């Protein structure tokens, strides 16, 4: 019998430590059949974290890994998208929307709720992308013009098998009328509470009721108070961090924008228990192969359609344009030589190594003056403007050069403030940026013009 003592202790030890090793701080060791409602949205065109950023959070490639990992074992996963896949700025955003709808399909999303940014993309873009998509387009209060034959579901009831039970999940979705100028697009937006009220009256019995509320948190709270039938109200709109609140017996939650977090509403029907948690799509999730393929194709499309060549240029200033680094170096040789040793000088090569050199959104911060007349157009046309050159920080310099040549004082040219750097060194692309530290990497003394 003495021999069994250590065995029992060993078993206890292993069971305690094994569960700790596999579970995160919020994860339950319960092995019962489980339904997980995974939610997120408001990508706003954010397909992947910027390669320049040290900490990679979010993106469709990590999201698919998370969803795939959730589907392991005795779990059923329903994925819901809150709305706002892209923002209407041009062809690049149309391609982003197409890529994201394809990604949602591959990730087996059940519904996509219409957001105001989706509507701004235009009914033709919505119709084109969702016509043959397995993802259902949802809105309980948006009525699109019927001329384009776009099917929008006012609600969706999804029946899923969880263990040996069949669970019916009712899903409704609204868009806050405050977020969209209804007068403009022939789109009708009903008052959310009226639309929800009339649907709930007719709705067949369900086990779980979920509302995708594309509205501010305050409005979502009010809807949760008005309709306590909902177990979960998924909110959002421009919140960049997750929020979880209880409003009566309803959970109101947002996973934040840009798809950096995914909310997981876990339901164990056997016990009638629920729990909500937010998962940051950090580097602990590997990038999934199929999504990387999709992202690669996205880059291929940008190149094929020559979006870099189609960037619309702002007239920078009637009087000044870009002179190029060599013109700066002629009078400021020390600063120019120093610049050549910095990563600003090789910024375009860095981008080319990452195979994003045809993506205008990336190129803008790796060359000089992409968005301005006289600025970078392509490596062939404007090789002198590749990399973040002198004028990338100090502004177009032809007027300064001409004044200097005429012996005039040009003290006002080129003065910059620390926050000017944040146009590129922002939170999504350079979260570690601290001006005093980063300045040291490019510090060059004020140099009196040669001669």
């Amino acid at each position, binding site marked *: 019998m003495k021999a069994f003592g250590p065995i029992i202790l060993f078993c206890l030890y292993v069971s305690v430590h094994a569960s700790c090793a596999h579970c995160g701080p919020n994860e339950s060791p319960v092995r019962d059949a489980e339904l997980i409602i995974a939610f997120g949205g408001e990508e706003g065109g954010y397909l992947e974290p910027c390669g320049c950023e040290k900490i990679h959070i979010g993106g469709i490639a990590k999201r698919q890994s998370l969803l795939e990992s959730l589907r392991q074992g005795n779990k059923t996963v329903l994925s819901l998208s809150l709305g706002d896949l892209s923002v*209407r700025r041009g062809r690049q955003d149309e391609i982003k929307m197409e890529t994201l709808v394809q990604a949602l399909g591959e990730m087996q999303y059940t519904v996509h709720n219409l957001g105001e940014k989706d509507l701004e993309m235009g009914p033709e873009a919505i119709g084109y992308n969702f016509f043959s998509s397995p993802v259902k387009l949802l809105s309980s209060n948006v009525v699109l013009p019927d001329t384009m034959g776009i099917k929008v579901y006012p609600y969706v009831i999804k029946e899923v098998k969880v263990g040996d039970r069949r669970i019916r999940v009712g899903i409704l979705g609204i868009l806050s009328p405050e977020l969209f100028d209804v007068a403009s697009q022939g789109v009708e937006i009903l008052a959310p509470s009226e639309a929800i009220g009339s649907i709930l009256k007719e709705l067949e019995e369900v086990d779980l009721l979920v509302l995708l509320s594309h509205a501010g948190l305050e409005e979502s709270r009010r809807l949760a108070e008005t309709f306590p039938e909902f177990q979960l109200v998924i909110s959002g709109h421009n919140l960049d*961090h997750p929020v979880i609140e209880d409003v009566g017996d309803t959970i109101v939650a947002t996973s934040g924008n840009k798809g950096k977090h995914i909310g997981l509403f876990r339901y164990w029907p056997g016990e009638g228990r629920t729990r909500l948690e937010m998962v940051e799509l950090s580097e602990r999730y590997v990038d999934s192969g199929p999504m990387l393929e999709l992202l690669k194709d996205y880059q291929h499309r940008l190149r094929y359609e020559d979006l870099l060549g189609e960037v619309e240029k702002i007239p920078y200033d009637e009087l000044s344009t870009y002179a190029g680094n060599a013109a700066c170096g002629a009078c400021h040789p020390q600063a120019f030589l120093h610049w050549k040793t910095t990563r600003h000088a090789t910024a375009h090569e860095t981008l080319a190594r990452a195979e994003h050199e045809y993506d205008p959104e990336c190129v803008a911060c790796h060359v000089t003056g992409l968005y301005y007349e006289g600025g970078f157009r392509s490596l062939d046309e404007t090789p002198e403007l590749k990399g973040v050159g002198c004028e990338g920080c100090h502004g177009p310099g032809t007027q300064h050069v001409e004044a200097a040549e005429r012996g005039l004082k040009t003290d006002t040219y080129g003065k910059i403030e620390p926050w000017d750097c944040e146009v590129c060194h922002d939170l999504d692309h350079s979260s570690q940026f601290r001006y005093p530290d980063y300045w040291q990497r490019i510090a060059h003394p004020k140099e009196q013009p040669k001669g």
Partner: protein
Amino acid sequence: MYPAVKPNLLRLFFCAFAAIVFCGMLGNSLLAADSETAPRIIFEEDSHDFGDIFRGERVSHKFTFSNQGTGDLVIENVKTSCGCTAAAPSNKTISSGAEAGIEVTFRSDVFRGNTRKTITVNSNDPDRPHYVLTIEANVLEEVVARPRQVFFEPVKQGQSVTKTVEVVPLTDLKLKIMKVRAASPAVKLRYEKKGEENAYLLEISTRERAPLGRFAGNVQVFTNARRQNVLTIPFFGEIISDVSVFPDKISYGVVKKGQETLRQVLITIHKKDVRLEKFDVEPDYFSLNLIPDTENYFHRLEIILGKDVPAGRLEGNLKIHTTSKDQPLLTIPIYGVVREG
């Protein structure tokens, strides 16, 4: 029968178990000893409200904390949500009893109204490894555009449609517009003072010679507002003729060889008497299927990539012939890649 385990092997097995159990218990006791010397991060306040601030302003606040544990506190990193920057203390190791601060700066340029942001301080405090601080502000605007964005219903090429935006200050600022600009070739801009009022009228007009297709962009209005000297007004719309198509380029992406793939083009007829005459598609491994609209307004054309496509780069064209005088032929490029299955 069943092979028996030899008694000496059984003893060895139990000894191994005992050793593992001993190590586990030793580990636990070491952990217990660790918790007695654990650091403890305590902030004087978890949140700060900046109150009313103007858009464009930068405001800062220092969150002070102390290490009230017995071991060294190590600040691993500080994460912020958008619009904030937070400087971790210069000395990342804070000894027991010592104080330090985290300077948080909030940049309000892109926010409006009540705004709440979080800062997460990650440390080696075993009880609160992710300490969340909150800042709040009510971001007021100095100058606003009414409406905030401009949408043009489809505009017939050759016509110019004007939308007017009122630019008004919300403070006692005597508003002055210095200049306006937009990158899009589809629009032109004009502004003038609104009579005697402290406001301006900005006209955004489509150009008569604007290229066909969808357009979008921003008007930047430079004002004399000290804190919010650039006001951005998004605009979007479409210049049309008799027929418009979406998309104007078709991508099949990466297709596996032998896989039938469908894409579509949405064709909208804007002039009643215009008809779709015929379609050509090349190369010939594409086939077409038109889903016509009896009202001749909105047609859907399916372009099916057959299974017999060779691997390699996919390039072709869809040609739509119409009875339109201005648009007798619309050409839509098709591209993609076919990979060996």
